[in-house]
């Protein structure tokens, strides 16, 4: 195609607010013909909002979008697709019970008279997939193939619609290395044909392997557009996290986090892995120690927590608690080993909004005791009042519905819930996300207090500052793999970021 390099899509000053949040604040984005453009940013940076505005899921508040020089506005994803912007999502939006061929052609089947021409469908589907180096029986139901192949089928469908712009939203999160290679080859071929590709991923190695340009967003703002070749990894990370490392970074030191003499290990993981999710992983958590898990979004932080708490079962390796081998294979089992877990998404995985604060707090305590050994109302109230006071939870009374509390207070209710269990290991996954500074400080104080009491804490956060502040040891994760561990004096934001920026081995799950 002749026009390679011409501007295909031009977004200027695009803004979109949701109640209380400015999800996009005057964002610029430019996509040229025949380029792969990576869109980078941490959680909440505005990547998905940008895509959703572009494909008509959300309306913009202000700003302009131009496709091939003409104003563009899509009313729905279908509308966007018909105008040339197609999206392949992380979750595969296809129909598992229908055949592969039908998945590619449904909605625009070739007809023969009044009948669907099944022969043509199967033949054309085969052709479309051969173009992607895929030779499979297209008459089989989609669900009989791996996620990777399903992903390719989704792409085949999109390409067949003849998109001008292809948006790939985390397409590789479930692919193995060879499958990724295959996808990248396809992307490159499409790029040579003049298609513009917007590529969203958390894997830095893939960004450097495939993309021509990178646009970085942070907190809904446009940080900059760079040529991939001219932007070192280290700088990219610092732009995504918003830390300018060029300025002298004074490490706050590890004043709070230093531990007295090392204590007995509470839990030890040896080569624990989950195929397709996490590489083999070692970790030791001692009594009275705060261990941090640092890494970018999607690096496998939450997955580690879920393995420890028995939500997912490991496929290999061994776990020890108090130096005795254990198999933590369900949350119930984990609780009986005195492990507690505050999940990342407190709205859906933690708080039960329609129950009162009291009920929310005593819930697991009750389930631990079993159905027949009830906790008296009086005792429940005593426990609840104790924690409301201890954590300074702002409630009108203990019978207030938990759903009506602010984010920070909901978080405290969950903390109270698990503290009431007196756990020996408390896993905190992003405990400070979306809560205000005051509440953050209090949660931090609380962590120190638990540590004094000899409890172990696994602290997961994307805010490096917090990690540096609270942890006495930090395991660094990258691309689902532990890439380093630092402790005591060595912990600093800079050290963590340098480790993250190191060239990956390219190894994929």
């Amino acid at each position, binding site marked *: 195609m002749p026009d390679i390099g011409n501007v295909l899509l031009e977004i200027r000053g695009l803004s979109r607010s949701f109640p209380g949040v400015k999800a996009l604040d005057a964002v610029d984005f430019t996509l040229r013909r025949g380029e792969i453009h990576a869109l980078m940013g941490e959680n909440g940076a505005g990547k998905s909002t940008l895509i959703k505005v572009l494909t008509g899921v959300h309306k913009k508040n202000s700003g302009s979008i131009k496709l091939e020089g003409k104003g563009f506005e899509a009313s729905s994803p279908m509308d966007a697709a018909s105008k040339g912007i197609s999206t392949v999502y992380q979750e595969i*939006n296809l129909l598992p019970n*229908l055949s592969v061929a039908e998945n590619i052609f449904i909605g625009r089947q070739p007809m023969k008279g009044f009948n669907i021409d099944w022969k043509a469908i199967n033949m054309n589907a085969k052709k479309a997939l051969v173009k992607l180096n895929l030779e499979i029986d297209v008459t089989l139901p989609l669900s009989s193939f791996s996620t990777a192949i399903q992903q390719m089928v989704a792409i085949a469908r999109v390409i067949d619609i003849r998109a001008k712009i292809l948006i790939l939203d985390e397409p590789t999160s479930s692919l193995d290395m060879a499958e990724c290679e295959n996808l990248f080859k396809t992307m490159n071929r499409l790029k040579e044909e003049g298609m513009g590709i917007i590529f969203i991923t958390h894997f830095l190695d893939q960004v450097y392997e495939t993309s021509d340009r990178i646009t970085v967003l942070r907190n809904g703002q446009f940080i900059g557009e760079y040529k991939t070749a001219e932007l070192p990894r280290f700088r990219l990370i610092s732009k995504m996290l918003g830390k300018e490392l060029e300025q002298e970074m004074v490490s706050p030191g590890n004043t709070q986090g230093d531990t007295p003499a090392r204590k007995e290990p509470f839990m030890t993981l040896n080569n624990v892995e989950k195929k397709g999710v996490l590489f083999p992983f070692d970790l030791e958590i001692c009594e009275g120690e705060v261990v941090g898990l640092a890494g970018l979004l999607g690096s496998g932080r939450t997955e580690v927590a879920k393995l420890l708490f028995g939500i997912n079962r490991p496929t290999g390796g061994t776990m020890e608690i108090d130096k005795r081998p254990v198999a933590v294979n369900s949350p119930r089992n984990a609780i009986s080993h005195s492990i507690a877990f505050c999940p990342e998404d407190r709205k859906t995985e933690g708080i039960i909004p329609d129950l009162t604060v009291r009920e929310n707090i005593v819930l697991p305590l009750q389930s631990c005791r079993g159905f027949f050994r009830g906790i008296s109302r009086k005792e429940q109230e005593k426990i609840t009042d104790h924690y409301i006071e201890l954590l300074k939870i702002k409630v009108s009374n203990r019978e207030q519905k938990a759903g009506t509390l602010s984010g920070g207070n909901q978080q405290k209710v969950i903390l109270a819930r698990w503290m009431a269990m007196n756990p020996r290991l408390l896993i905190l996954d992003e405990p400070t996300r979306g809560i205000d500074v005051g509440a953050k400080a209090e949660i931090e104080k609380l962590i120190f207090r638990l540590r004094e009491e000899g409890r172990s804490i696994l602290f997961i956060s994307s805010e490096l500052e917090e990690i540096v502040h609270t942890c006495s040891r930090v395991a660094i994760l990258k691309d689902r793999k532990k890439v380093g561990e630092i402790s005591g004096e060595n912990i600093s934001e800079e050290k963590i970021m340098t480790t993250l920026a190191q060239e990956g081995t390219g190894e994929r799950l």
Partner: protein
Amino acid sequence: MRFRLSQKNIPILSTFLVFILLYLSGAFAYKGFFSLRVFINLFIDNAFVGIIAIGMTFVIISGGIDLSVGSLVAFTGVLCANLLSRTDIPPYMVIFICLLCGAALGLAMGSLIHFLEMPPFLVTLVGMFLARGLSFVISLDSVPIRNELFLSISKASIPLGNGIRLPAYAVTFIIMALIGAYILHYTRFGRNIYAIGDNEKSALLMGLPVGRTKIFIYTINSTICAAGGLVYSLYTLAGYPLAGTGLELDVITAVVIGGTLLTGGVGFMEGTVIGVMILGLIQTIITFQGNLSTWWTKVFIGILLCIFILLQRYIAARKIQDKNK
């Protein structure tokens, strides 16, 4: 790979197997069971259940359910009988009005389900009470049909020799089943039904006309159901407000035994026809047996349904296992 392909077909293959087994056991156990007359009677006695099951197959493949069919059969019958006996509206027009009423109810239910995103179970439950109530409002008693045209239609039949005849309504059932199978397999509308039942969100993102299709499915189903009601009144030559009580459950049973997944996305019209036949066979066998109370029919249907649901569960579990590999 070949094995997996057949996995999708396990429900319908087992349906067919059950039918053969039941038929053979009946034929060996009872004298006179293996005759054309008994076989044809399966079609005759179950024609109106079968016709309604055709519409229900569309609905269930799309992942929905319709509880209003039994009541709608009663309503159509009562309406038809009353219009014929109390007014001068010509019989063709009466048929048209009955079908139109069915279509209107279906359109209303489909619209509620789509626009207000209400669960089909609730919406059609409303339809069920509405139609049943209205049939009692029209008439408390059974109203006989004495119209010439209706009498002649009810007597019309195709001779098959040996004095065995295939009545018009049985023919209607067979023709409608063929049309239904064609729609499901060879039209975009039919394929969209599968898509919606498979994964509605995906179907929407793939640009398929989800809303339009859903509303159309319920409209068609209720129209077919009104037709079923007309067939029922031809069969009994009366309109009775208590007709078709619990019919919706028989129909759903027939569809599920026919290999259609209640979760949507998988199903065949052929399966539904065999499913209806199986229900008829069980009844026939009980009749031939002679000593058992007819209520045993329900017991056997219950057991059979249980087996098929377990089979569906097993297939679903297998699928998840395959995925995790």
